[in-house]
């Protein structure tokens, strides 16, 4: 096979349209459906999918009931039945997602959905979204955040119960402020693939900086681990028993565990600098490092973050 033929075949793959399992038969129109499903139809104008009906310009396969459930002719002739139409209760999570993504893949926010952790673990659209019985006015969620996410992520729920936490249970924030449940590009600010599904602030930086803009910089003197490892090197982002979401109850042990001056660590490869003899660690004055090193996220005026 010559290279040109391979290229044409590749293009054919690329151009192949998305489709999912579609029932055969003709389209009958949504008004026929309301005869037997009035409870769904009479409140459908509140559904985001009603836009396709109101536009009156969509093809039958892209609008109304049959836009998702497929042609209804056989279903009508058989006087109902799940076998004669695309019934989502019978579809696998993957098949459900394929049906939804026929329209909803055309969004940057969902461009990574096929490689997302949710998809890999067979979490389909219908496990978080309820098309006809949504609990939220936006996004047709089956439950409101964070209850929806807590249903599976029990450990995260515990983290938001801590004394110090981001205000998710208070309704001030939502999980989707920081995460994109439809998948994201790999976090560029770290090496490994973790954390997963964290949406990026200002297109290419850690999500924390979307709100904590004073920590963004740039600073003439960056605290290198902030840029190299990300905020999680010192903070537990969901919640912590420690103030300021720190990973240790006291500041100085957290700092000393890196600033021990040994190994090939640090920006110059000679170990992360240890403290000078002036730091008497038995003196409470020196035990709270950020008393003096207050610009610990980065400073413009002092390489030791003192001002």
């Amino acid at each position, binding site marked *: 096979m010559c290279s040109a033929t391979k290229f044409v075949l590749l293009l054919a793959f*690329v*151009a*192949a349209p998305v489709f999912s399992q579609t029932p055969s038969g003709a389209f009958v129109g949504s008004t026929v459906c309301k005869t037997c499903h009035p409870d769904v139809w009479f409140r459908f*104008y509140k559904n985001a999918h009603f*836009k396709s009906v109101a536009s009156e310009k969509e093809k039958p396969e892209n609008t109304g009931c049959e836009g998702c459930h497929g042609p209804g002719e056989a279903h009508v002739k058989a006087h109902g039945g799940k076998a004669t139409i695309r019934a989502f209760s019978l579809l*696998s999570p993957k098949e459900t997602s394929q049906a939804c993504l026929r329209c909803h893949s055309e969004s*940057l926010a969902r*461009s990574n959905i*096929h*490689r997302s952790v949710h998809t*890999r673990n*067979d979490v389909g659209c219908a496990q978080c979204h309820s098309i006809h019985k949504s609990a939220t*006015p936006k996004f047709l969620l089956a439950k409101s955040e964070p*209850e929806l996410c807590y*249903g599976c992520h*029990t*450990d995260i729920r*515990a983290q938001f*119960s801590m*004394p110090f936490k981001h205000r998710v249970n208070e*309704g*001030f924030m939502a999980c989707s402020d920081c995460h994109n449940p439809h998948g994201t*590009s*790999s976090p*560029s600010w770290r*090496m*490994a693939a973790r954390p997963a599904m964290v949406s990026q602030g*200002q*297109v*290419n930086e850690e999500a924390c900086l979307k*709100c904590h803009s*004073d920590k*963004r*910089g*740039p600073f*003439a*003197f960056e605290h*290198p681990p902030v*840029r*190299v490892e990300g905020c999680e*090197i010192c903070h537990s982002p969901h919640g912590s028993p420690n103030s300021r979401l720190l990973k*240790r*109850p006291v500041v100085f*042990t957290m700092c000393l*565990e890196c600033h*021990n*001056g040994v*190994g*090939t*660590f640090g920006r110059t490869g000679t170990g992360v600098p240890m403290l000078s003899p002036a730091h*008497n*660690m038995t003196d409470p004055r020196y*035990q*709270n490092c950020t*008393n003096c090193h*207050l610009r610990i996220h980065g400073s*413009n*005026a*002092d390489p030791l973050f003192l*001002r």
Partner: protein
Amino acid sequence: MRLTIRALVFLPFAAGLFGQVVAPTPNSVGPTRGDDWKNYNVVNSFETGYRFLSQSGNQNKYRSDENFGSGVRLLSSFIGLNSKDGHSALFDELVFSTQGLGGDPYESASLRVQKNRIYEYNLLWRKNDYFNPGLTTDGGQGQNLLDTTTTLQDNNLTLFPQSKIKIFLGYSRNTQDGAGISTFPSATSIGDFVPVFTDVRQIQNEYRLGGEVRWWGMTLNFLHGWQDFKDDSTGQVNHGASPYWQVALFRNARWIDLNGRFTYTGSQRGFLTNQNAVGTNQQVYTYGDARRPVATGNATVSLFPTSKLTIANHTSFYNIRTDGDSTYLQLNNSTGLANALYYQYLGIRTVANDTDFDYKIKNWFDVHGGYEYSNRRIAATSQFALAGTPDTVPYVQTNELNAGKVGFRARPISRLIVTVNAEFGRASRPFTPKSDSNYNVLTGRIEYKWKTLQLAAWSQADYNDNSVLLSDYNSHGRSYAGSGSWSPVKWFAFDASYSKLHLETLGGINFFAQNVLFANQVSYYLSNLHTGTLSARFSLRRFDFYLGYSRVQDTGDGRAIPTQLVIGPDLPAFRTAQTFPLLFQSPQARVSFRISERLRWNAGYQYFGYREDFFPSQNYLAHTGYTSLLWSF
């Protein structure tokens, strides 16, 4: 009518089951189908009431953790208008909701207005009373204090949202204002710090313009943003801008997904700080510029050769260069002049490639795995010299990370799902002693769902060993969690969860105490953190009741008094710093009484109790609650 009452009974169970804040009330009022007004259907509800607080103990700690106060509040409100035919003049949908207005520490409002095919506008506004007394868990030795208000707002307008050509416009504003106390190094005595009052004023504005074009199955998305940041808090001026660009091209098809994205951010910030030494003629200025261009790229190819197999390859690069000059200028009686230039450079370039596969062996069993290679190059220099001195040569280091992932997902019966995932990685040159070096993560999850009964159990072991000569660091974290929820009848729902985090870390430390070097010491931290929640909802005639309880307890290493058992260095500072038993619990109760279809009376009580075993000075108790009317017109 019967349908309406059923819905009213059911709705409380649909939302807020796990919520741990007693107010606002999650119940709904008004006809479930709303009211018709002209061409719209209207749904609305308002909850107005009084929130009270009685607090004792450490007020600073309470304000840092919870911060609810007393006063009249618009606890929540909701207005929804939907066009019945989708052809209304100005808008087809309007959804407006608020929470906590009138004085709660966490206030928010959101608005969505959209007209089919023409526009969609979303606004999210949030205001947070932020109180940071500089506390740490060991007794609050911090001297820095912030008592500020942060407001965040995001405005997003999409034109022609259903078209193949969309236009995006956006504006965000982020401010922090308030009072603060900070510290400043003394200009006359090295090592001494003086407290300074600070009027905190930070503003960030961001403007966005973008678009999306679809043709031939491909989508091109582009975005340009301008971000402006200003911090002119007392004693300093920071002013900078971060313009950024993003271009993405992607296509999802049956056999293949293609996804590419490129971003560039060019940040710059100019700064000036001023410091006067009281009682002397000294004055210190620092001024300069910091610059940080960031470029990132991602490319993903996902293949679906069969319905059972998915292969995805993802390549990313990240390039960030931070440099800056900072001039230190000290004036002494206007005669002596010392001028030094600090210069630093930090460049990070990371390239990563990972390949994942997912294969469904049977309908009930699939396996997945992957391999990731990352290469990170860091170049850094720093210099303290008089202006004009040649730059030093950057020190360059490279870290390579090889990581593998493997797992399976099984559904032996339709109600049961078992998932196991493992990830293990090896890094050749970690940046800090705490960085991932030799790590492995094993995660398992079991879920069982039968009708309204849902049970789940989860476990994770996360080990990281990062060892070098003279210094060991290893972190062993093991987490276990379980949860269950059950709603056997429509008027009763029960929910419970338990989580345990066992964390022990061992870190090599060197430090000075009274001018004596304590070398090759060990910092050992142990935490056994238990978290449990219980909640129950039930309805009796016109009453809806909610009972909830949340408990967080760190049992530490089991010692009863701070110095009973010494782990780590034998210094008072470390004896109590390595394990921190504490208890934080919060029971709550709420009742909601349906007076009529459009009116409810609610009352609730929530208790917060925080207790540290070793440092009681931070303990607090708080009794909060509210009474309110939830109404609809």
